[in-house]
């Protein structure tokens, strides 16, 4: 029977696709629930279709306030972490200095430490330095830059290390000054890596709960809002935000992919 043979030949691919499909099940539920018209606030089930949640996202103003805070912290910590991390990645790939391997280890460790341990140690530092009364925007910012940094370094470093340096040599052979070579050749080549690192960093910051919850004082970020609202019943608008985050990140990735395809076709 040809159908059975086809299945046998493609078994691994089919199983893989099944796993992939399973990862999308909760997302489908999030999208569905964003159109939910709940019968009661504390019972979480699909009761009826409505566009209300999309039309009135800020029905609960405290949710939008939390979103705003998450955005501001996400943007600022991404900016700082991406800058510092990119500099460090250049140092690690392009320069030789004493302590290079210790620097590599220092970059690796935050990725291997559980969040609850990083968060609680940072809190003890803030308490010990008398900042316990000032927990809020800046302490969250400091924490987010700290755990985003390593991911930026690793992302940019792998882009730099995989780069062909013959283009830079060619530029130098054609009498480009070092700064011309950097801004016209090196930087454009590394840029996709930097952009990817920035996206990763923003989503890590925007989504963080465990570290933030320990170091936030009275401030409430979006994940903390969801956590707090969960006991009394989460407003359906939370699912609208979840859907938007999903769609926007897919869009960014697809546009990036199309862009790089167009460019590689232009080169070929």
């Amino acid at each position, binding site marked *: 029977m040809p159908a059975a043979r086809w299945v046998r030949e493609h078994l691994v691919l089919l199983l893989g696709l099944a796993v992939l499909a399973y990862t999308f099940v909760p997302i489908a539920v999030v999208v569905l629930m964003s159109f939910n018209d709940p019968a009661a606030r504390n019972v979480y089930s699909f009761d009826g279709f409505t566009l209300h949640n999309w039309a009135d996202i800020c029905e609960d103003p405290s949710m939008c306030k939390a979103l705003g805070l998450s955005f501001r912290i996400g943007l600022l910590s991404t900016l700082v972490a991406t800058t510092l991390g990119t500099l460090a990645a250049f140092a690690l790939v392009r320069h030789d200095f004493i302590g290079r391997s210790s620097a590599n280890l220092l970059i690796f460790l935050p990725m291997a430490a559980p969040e609850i341990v990083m968060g609680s140690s940072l809190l003890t530092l803030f308490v010990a330095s008398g900042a316990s009364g000032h927990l809020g925007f800046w302490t969250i910012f400091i924490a987010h830059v700290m755990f985003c940094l390593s991911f930026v370094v690793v992302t940019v470093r792998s882009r730099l290390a995989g780069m062909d340096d013959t283009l830079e040599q060619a530029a130098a052979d054609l009498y480009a000054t070092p700064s011309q070579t950097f801004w016209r050749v090196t930087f454009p080549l590394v840029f996709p890596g930097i952009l990817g690192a920035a996206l990763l960093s923003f989503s890590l910051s925007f989504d963080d709960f465990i570290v933030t919850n320990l170091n936030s004082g009275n401030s409430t970020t979006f994940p903390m809002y969801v956590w707090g609202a969960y006991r009394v019943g989460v407003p359906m608008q939370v699912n609208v935000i979840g859907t938007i985050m999903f769609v926007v990140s897919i869009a960014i*990735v697809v546009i990036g992919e199309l862009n790089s395809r167009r460019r590689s076709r232009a080169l070929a």
Partner: protein
Amino acid sequence: MAAGVRRRGKVGYLLMVPATLWLLVFFVVPFYSLVATSLFDPSGSDFRGYDMTYHWQNYADVLQAYWRPFLRSIWYAALATLICLVLGYVLAYAIAFKAGRWKNLLLVLVIAPFFTSFLVRTLSWQLILSDHGWVVRSLQFVHLLGPEDRLLATPAAIVAGLAYNFLPFMVLPLFASIDKIDPRLVEASSDLYANPFVGFFKVTWPLSLPGVVSGTLLTFIPAAGDYINAEFLGSTNQRVIGNVIQGQFVDANNAPVAASLSVLLMLIIVAMVLVYVRRAGTEELL
């Protein structure tokens, strides 16, 4: 890039200094203050301050009081890591060897679901596994679950949630390792009359070990510290250590207890990682 191209001189230090300083001040120094806090006299309070009395007894006390949440965290994380390894291996293998020109697209799809907020997608699992949801009803219909049995508020739900949320941490390193394997090696094994199973366990699996080791570590470590899944999908009978640490710091204002728990968790994880990496024979990864 060859190592010979690396330039010496001041620039390297200047580029490295900002990130190094940030990590030293806000990652390394905090560990010191965490250990110090764990040795404070527990009779103090956040308001009156604590006395440093090298109170090692804290460690014995918290182990005695909280060994159950500790065991639970480790156990749930280990099970979830195992499930991730099986599911992740199938997925990574399929993408690396069977996806052809769809490789990049599929890799994007692996990460895509995880751009939705962690808490929102865990809440979504809560709905899927809820007592009146179709999953529970179908399982009851085929008598895999009794009429009174539930999925929510059980350890199984927590493990499933962990296995779901940390799957990309497993798939990506596995993919990186499997993708590097030369398919001709697998073909060679079949030319030499190895059946597909022997071929897999003698060729593909050993070559993918670096990915297996880094994937399991990247899954296990965050899963052991996580308490969001336990809170949303479990009940108060399944409190995990992350939950206890958070509560002791913020609600109970008992910093020395929370700090000793944190230090213990870190030590347990480091010890397990060292044993595991040595057993797998992949020390050079660290």
